[in-house]
């Protein structure tokens, strides 16, 4: 996992290496400075030697400036390296998500992709920052300080033999106990967030069922678990710093006692008072380094989960492999399904589409009718190769869809999805998704075809009206018409409407179909609809039932020979016939 993530450092490798280098410099200075201070006190102030004080003072100043320089540079390179690393992670993940096929997207929920791209990257970035700064700093500090202690007095260094194992063992126990609690906390946090999110989205449901208290209690229940676990974990962690303090204090007292004895007994030859002062500083430095190391360890284990989640996205391979074909265009809008079987997952024992055989000529209008769950959407999604067939083949323009370059294919097969989205931006910007350099005239033209012009013209800003995220400020029917216009902008050879006029009133629906017939006669039009009226005048109507073709023909044929179709028709005509 680490190897995979480290690959994303790339152009910031220089900074990622420079940071620890300068950190080492900074550490050396930090170890050196207490030594200089001790000198200044011992031989300058204590001796009343002003010249020495000034001399050491200048040396100290120089060291401080050097240390400042190292510190500042390390801080800046660290910022660059970690921000750059995060940038690359987001970049790589986002790029890979763009390659995801529909089934990849189905596998990860959108919410989870978003979390991985935001929160998880953040966690990993923090851990990375720790590693290149503190993970180098602390061991170095440990080594240098320990060396300094050894040179001053190897005997007194023995103190650490006792103190360090105590500290390490203590920290280890605390982390061991606290870690699982934190893990639980973060999981519970996910639950909390999903409660809030669902509540926000379903606020009308909550209010109309008067479930405000129920929701509040649900929230409080989870909130309470977080509270309890957090208190438990933090109370455990509260042992950290006193443990550390006890170790520091204990070492100080030991060193005071044995150090004083050494100084007095040896007549300040084995150890000087100045050196004793430095020892005190090193005690703090050594033990706090250990403390930091333990923190890093915790941070790392915590961000491990995030790292794994990121790698999952990075390593996810799109299961639709782009054919490296030289076919640069789609011959015409003909479509044929040959013995097609399809299942969403390989393990599923039930096929969503079974033994589908159908030929659609270029320029035909084809209606698809079928009950809820009869795999209508699945059927059309195979045409632009949003999913790959399980068996058999789908041909567009006489060529198997798998032999096209995906972009070539999808540029000619425009599809208006059932669950369609508009993006934040003006109406023009949204329509231009279909054709980047579309002129205003072209945009107006497609909007007229989709019967969207009448309401757009009523907006004060007309085509420059700003659409909120997800198209929140236009009604369902308006959204659908804009989505149709967007698809028309591509001037495709095949146009698929997946129940795309369900929120449009029947009259407008008819007008749109009329426009299709008159304005784009050469385009193959496939229309999934609930309303018979939407498909009635199609050249061919396919009746799907439970993943199988139950009938093909025009309206009149089907009315006379297809039971399902007749039933659907009658269910819609009920009451109407009496009057006509």
């Amino acid at each position, binding site marked *: 996992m680490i190897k995979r993530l480290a690959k994303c450092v790339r152009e910031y490798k220089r900074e990622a290496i420079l940071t620890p280098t300068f950190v080492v410099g900074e550490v050396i200075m930090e170890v050196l400075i207490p030594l200089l201070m001790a000198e200044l006190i011992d031989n300058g*102030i204590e001796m*009343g030697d002003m010249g020495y*004080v000034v001399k050491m003072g200048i040396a*100290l100043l120089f060291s*401080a400036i050097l*240390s400042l320089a*190292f*510190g500042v540079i*390390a*801080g800046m390179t*660290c910022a*660059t390296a970690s921000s750059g690393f995060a*940038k690359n992670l987001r970049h790589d993940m*986002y790029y890979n998500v*763009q390659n995801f096929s*529909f089934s990849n997207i189905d596998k990860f929920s959108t919410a989870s992709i*978003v979390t991985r791209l*935001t929160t998880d990257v953040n966690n990993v970035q*923090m851990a990375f920052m720790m590693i290149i700064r*503190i993970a180098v700093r602390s061991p170095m500090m440990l080594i240098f300080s320990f060396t300094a202690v050894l040179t001053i007095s190897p005997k007194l260094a023995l103190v650490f033999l006792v103190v360090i194992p105590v500290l390490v063992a203590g920290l280890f126990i605390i982390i061991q106990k606290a870690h699982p609690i934190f893990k639980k906390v973060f999981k519970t946090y996910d639950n909390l*967030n999903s409660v809030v*999110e*669902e509540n926000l989205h379903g606020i*009308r*449901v909550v209010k*109309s*069922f008067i479930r*405000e208290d129920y*929701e509040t209690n649900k929230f409080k229940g989870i909130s*309470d678990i977080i*509270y309890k676990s*957090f208190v438990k974990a*933090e109370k455990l962690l509260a042992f950290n*710093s006193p443990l*550390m*303090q006890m170790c520091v*204090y204990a070492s*100080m*007292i030991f060193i005071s*006692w044995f150090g*004083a004895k050494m*100084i007095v007994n040896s007549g300040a030859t084995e150890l000087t008072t100045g050196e004793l*002062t430095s020892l005190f500083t090193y005690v*703090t430095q050594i033990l*706090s380094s250990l403390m930091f190391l333990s923190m*890093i360890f915790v941070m790392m284990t915590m961000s491990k989960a995030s790292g794994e989640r990121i790698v999952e996205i990075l390593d996810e391979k799109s299961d639709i492999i782009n054919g490296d074909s030289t076919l640069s265009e789609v011959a015409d809008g003909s479509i044929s399904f040959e013995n097609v079987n399809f299942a969403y997952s390989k393990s599923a024992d039930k096929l969503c589409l079974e033994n589908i055989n159908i030929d659609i000529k270029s320029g035909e209008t084809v209606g698809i*009718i079928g009950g*809820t769950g009869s795999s209508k959407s699945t059927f059309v999604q195979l045409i632009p190769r949003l999913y790959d067939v399980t068996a058999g083949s789908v041909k567009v323009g006489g060529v198997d869809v798998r032999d096209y370059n995906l972009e070539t294919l999808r540029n000619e097969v*425009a599809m208006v*999805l059932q669950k*369609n989205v508009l993006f934040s931006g003006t109406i023009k910007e949204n329509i231009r*998704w279909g054709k980047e350099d579309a002129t205003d005239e072209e945009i107006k033209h497609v909007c007229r075809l989709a019967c969207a012009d009448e*309401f757009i013209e009523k907006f004060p800003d007309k085509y420059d009206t700003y659409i909120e995220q997800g198209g929140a400020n236009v009604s369902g*029917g308006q959204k659908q018409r804009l989505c149709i216009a967007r698809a028309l902008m591509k001037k495709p050879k095949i146009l698929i409407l997946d129940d795309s006029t369900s*929120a*449009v009133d029947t009259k407008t629906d008819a007008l749109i179909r009329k426009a299709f017939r008159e304005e784009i006669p050469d385009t193959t039009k496939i229309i999934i609809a609930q*309303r018979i*009226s939407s498909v009635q005048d199609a050249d061919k109507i396919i009746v799907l039932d439970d993943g199988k073709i139950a009938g093909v023909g025009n309206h009149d044929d089907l009315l006379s020979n297809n039971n399902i179709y007749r039933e659907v028709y009658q269910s819609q005509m*009920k009451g*109407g016939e009496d009057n006509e």
Partner: protein
Amino acid sequence: MSNQPRRQGPPSGGPGGPKMVGKPVSVNKNTVKRLLSYFSNYKLHMILVFVFIITSAVASVMASLFLQTLIDGYVTPMLGANSSVGFSDLAMALVKMGCLYVCGALSGLFYSRIMASVSQGILKKIRDKMFAHMQTLPIKYFDSHNFGDTMSHYTNDTDSLRQMLAQSVPQAMSSIVTIVSVFFSMLRQSVWLTLIVIAFLFIIFKAMGFIGGKSSKYFVKQQKSVADVNSYIEEMVNGQKVVKVFCYEDKSKAEFDRRNNELFNNMRKANSYGNIVGPVMNNLGYILYVILAIVGGLLAIKSIPNLSLTAGINTLTLGTIASFLTLSRSFVQPISQVSQQINAIAMAMAGAERIFALIDEAPEADDGYVTLVNAKYDADGNITESEERTGQWAWKHPHSDGTLEYIPLKGNVVLDDVDFAYVEGKTVLHNVSLYAEPGQKVAFVGATGAGKTTITNLINRFYDIADGKIRYDGININKIKKADLRRSMGIVLQDVNLFTGTVMENIRYGKLDATDEECIAAAKLANADGFIRMLPQGYNTVLEGDGSGLSQGQRQLISIARAAVADPPVMILDEATSSIDTRTEAIVQSGMDALMKGRTVFVIAHRLSTVQNSDVIMVLEQGRIIERGSHEKLIAEKGKYYQLYTGAFELE
């Protein structure tokens, strides 16, 4: 994360308030005050915490001063001949110090543990309050606030608040104690040298002000870029399938890169400035150290009289200078630690401000006093209240003269000359008047945007009308308690929202005490039973992410079952069956009709077949009712409805 490394060890220190370093970060005083008010339940805790913090800080200061005592008081005298102090004295002193240290460390442990409860308790309280309050907000709030923004109050804002409460607050307190006690120790040693320290503090503040200013400038920019990138990710990933269909990947990548790079630049700068605060402060401390050593040395050698707060005028001894130098380090360190946390504190305060803004949002107004009760008819045909669910309902209407009136719930809804605007000045409903007789099926037909949904939103008071009156069984709906008003109506919306949980739990949402049998019966009524049984775990299949594994039509069926189990006296179906095929719809419809027998139903649909059998059909156009009547009547009138109807079927 709560256990981020913090600088530890004597002298312990930490961040204080942002004002301490004279930062340009503005903090709203009211926010601070309000945050403090949450501590009021923890007065005793806070007193204990304060005592422990003082003990712990004093132990730290003593620890840093002890070295000097050790050298001046014991080692140096013992080195000389005829020492009056011996090792036994030293041992005594060490034991005393040891006791103090233990006290200090234990105090540290106690206050951390108490603070853990306090800070988490406060957070829980804020979190719960925020959510409970959010439930009371009017629909208007949710219309006008981005979901992502509201979500971030629960995630980012609460998280930064947690970091501040758990870390910054105790550290700030202990820093202040340390700074104050060190300051007095310094004055005790030498007033002159203390003055130098104070003068130097101004330089430190200036430097911090500069770096802090830059840092917070880029920090704000960084936060903005983060929001920018996150919302782009959210929008694009949500529309990922559309991106695929339009081969828009490359453009989406390019736009992402642009935003991602901007974030990188701002983050790099913000972090750069943030990262150099530490080194700058530390090394300024060293410089101060050198200045003090030289000035102190000069003072001592030239024998310039020293002013001490406790000893008056004396001469500066070398030992005093040495210990003063140590003190100056202990003085600068907590200040340095404070300054490194300023961004975190500013962020927490900004978060708190946003959280309080949510809590301050005006809740849905509800002055209703008429309630809905279960009714029983006694022998005389009078209505009495019943504890049990009787299947009959009545409005309990207390009058101002103290009398109590029970009005049977019939489902008579009258709109009288109603005007309404979502946004002031943009009226969407004009002079709408309508009457729904109890048990009638009332349908609204009209183009998108004609105001059909708006009318139903007014009946259940998701929004309040601007002008006119709405009466429910003769009672002005403003007098009816909102909860009871809504309890009397079931609503099935076009956009279905399901909750994480099993299918059974989702159906039970309509009536929390419904038995499994009742839920299954409701599902059968909605014709959802068949496909539910096909799901991997049947009714126990867990739905996640708003039931993303289900088709639109299946989700609508579940939502109908959910409303059916609630068994409400009045039902509003807003395009409830739009994604269900007409065959299934016909089956659902017959079930619904059976369920709704004798009750009022409002139906909104595009599909005329859905509304044909309604008692009254209202045809809406641009916020006005232009036609009303039964299907037969409207057809006979050959008006708009007739056009729609014929347009729909295009009969040759």
